């Protein structure tokens, strides 16, 4: 059977159980695609030996019967996840050579279920970026191109390598992480599905920390069903992450009934941004009509503090990052600068961090340091945390009024060209997350689904935001949207 790498996760699961295909065959198909796809810059550390060993073990387990759904599925893992004995450097030069002596809880859950690791995936350095251009490995490239134009486009960020790899069928699915939109924006830019679960649903243990009160991991997949299957395996209560909740993990796939009759879908007026392209407005209106046709009740809602989400995020996330990244000091792991005669420990810290962190990471660490410094803590950090309370209350109010999910655009544009934002001021890049960042600040689950192409032939996505802990219900609404939109386009292979 050819093109095994193009299977969805659900189809691969079913075919392996039916004895039509083995995990080793699937894994070999993916490994050979990865080999030919270096132009995408998606995989940055390949682990073919580990993959084949895991695949063999998975085949034995599947044959024995009762193997978990994720057994034998070849995956790409974002470089932010610590994987035992395998380079894990958050796409930063400061973690050059770092091979953890431990495994992140999320990846351990996947390996326990029999999944296969193909390798580590490119990303923005420390997950700080929206275009995968801050990576020490170089850019990840979007497999999609504008019609009749071979300009290299961004796959989005920070999970750009994950998005590129899944969209190009290099793996069946990938892990991503999302602090302000880092799963959902790249998923939308590459025509795939990505879900950020409720804060606390997935353990953060062993995932390199960026902003701990916002970070959540989630799956990036070809379909909503695949996201449901993979998310369930990623979730768990974990004593090693004190913010991970001790709730039972539901069977998310079973929630995909395709029936959303009587559900209330909110359309927030504040998400009609000035200067939003007509194509995005139309995509949103079309998506609204699809959910209405499926029997949902559409209601206009207001989330009045939306406008303040990005500025609040750009206080809170850098503040937490400046604290989390203090550990990169050249003492315990990673890079240490070579020192001059007479240099002491302070020079070692300063030189190590100047050499090891890229410009965007340095900028955010310093902004975070500033907003937390004496005299500014109240004016910036505490004020941002108060605004965050108000942003969360906006959502609580609409959910209390009976809204089940909220439909918004995923991104303010389709994928842009690599290098196009190079000279723009950093704030312009931050605007990429305008529709996604509210969800992190409020700790809610959010999913993006591809629903159309723009005039240039590039994918566009819509976002659904759900009630806390109701990922099953959210996935079901996304499933209905996916079925109605019938998005089936794939990028033409040029790599």
């Amino acid at each position, binding site marked *: 059977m050819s093109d095994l790498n193009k299977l969805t996760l659900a189809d691969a699961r079913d075919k392996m159980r039916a004895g039509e295909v083995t995990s080793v065959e699937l894994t070999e198909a993916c490994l050979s695609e990865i080999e030919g796809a270096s132009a995408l810059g998606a995989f940055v550390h390949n682990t073919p030996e580990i993959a084949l060993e895991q695949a063999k073990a998975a085949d034995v387990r599947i044959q024995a019967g009762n193997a978990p759904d994720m057994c034998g599925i070849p995956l790409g893992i974002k470089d932010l996840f610590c994987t035992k004995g395998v380079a894990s450097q958050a796409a930063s030069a400061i973690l050059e050579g770092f091979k953890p*002596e431990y495994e992140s809880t999320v990846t351990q859950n996947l390996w326990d279920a029999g999944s296969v690791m193909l390798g580590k995936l490119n990303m923005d350095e420390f997950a700080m970026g929206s275009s995968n251009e801050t990576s020490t490995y170089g850019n990840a490239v979007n497999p999609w191109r504008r019609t009749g134009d071979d300009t290299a486009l961004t796959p989005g960020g920070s999970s750009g390598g994950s998005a590129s790899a899944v969209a190009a069928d290099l793996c069946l699915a990938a892990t991503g992480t999302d602090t302000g939109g880092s799963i959902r924006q790249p998923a939308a830019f590459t025509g795939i599905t990505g879900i950020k679960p409720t804060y606390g649903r997935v353990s953060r243990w062993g995932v390199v920390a960026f902003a701990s009160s916002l970070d959540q991991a989630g799956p990036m997949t070809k379909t909503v069903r695949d996201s449901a299957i993979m998310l369930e395996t990623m979730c768990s209560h974990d004593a090693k992450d004190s913010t991970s909740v001790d709730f039972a993990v539901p069977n998310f796939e079973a929630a995909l009934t395709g029936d959303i009759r009587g559900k209330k879908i909110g359309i927030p007026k504040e998400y009609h941004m000035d200067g939003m392209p007509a194509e995005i407005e139309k995509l949103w209106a079309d998506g609204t009509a699809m959910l209405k046709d499926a029997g949902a009740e559409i209601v206009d809602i207001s989330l009045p503090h939306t406008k303040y989400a990005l500025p609040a995020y750009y206080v809170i996330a850098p503040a937490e990052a400046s604290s989390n990244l203090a550990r990169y000091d050249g003492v315990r792991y990673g890079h240490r600068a070579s020192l001059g005669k007479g240099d002491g420990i302070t020079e070692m810290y300063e030189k190590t961090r100047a050499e090891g962190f890229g410009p965007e990471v340095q900028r955010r660490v310093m902004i975070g340091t500033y907003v937390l410094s004496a005299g500014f803590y109240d004016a910036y950090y505490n004020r941002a945390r108060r605004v965050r309370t108000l942003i969360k209350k906006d959502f609580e109010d609409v959910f209390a009024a009976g809204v089940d999910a909220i439909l918004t655009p995923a991104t303010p544009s389709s994928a842009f060209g690599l290098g196009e934002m190079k000279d723009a001021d950093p704030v312009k890049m931050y605007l990429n997350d305008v529709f996604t960042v509210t969800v992190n600040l409020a700790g809610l689950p959010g999913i993006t689904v591809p629903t159309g192409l723009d005039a240039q032939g590039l994918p566009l996505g819509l976002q659904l935001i759900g009630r806390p802990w109701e990922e099953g219900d959210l996935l079901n609404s996304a499933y209905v949207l996916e079925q109605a939109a019938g998005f089936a386009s794939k990028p033409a292979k040029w790599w």
Partner: protein
Amino acid sequence: MSIDKDTAARVAKLARIRVEEDALPALAEEFNAILGFIEELNEVDVDGVEPMTSVTPMRLKRRVDEITDGDQQDKVLKNAPDAREGFFAVPKVVE
């Protein structure tokens, strides 16, 4: 609130990131662009609003205070740029 060259130098020092003297003006300018954007938060009436401490209303779990881990000196030191005799080695700290 505008950040000048000296403030940028002070922030870089606090963050323990070496920034060369000639890079400071551009850095200050970037800070100002970002802080200008953040200033929008001043429009919000936050009187009587509690700063968020936890996005999910939860009590942190407690556990028995007992040793559950340890005796992994080799693993702890494995990735150190300079480890000697079972310790992390750093430039001289105390005269």
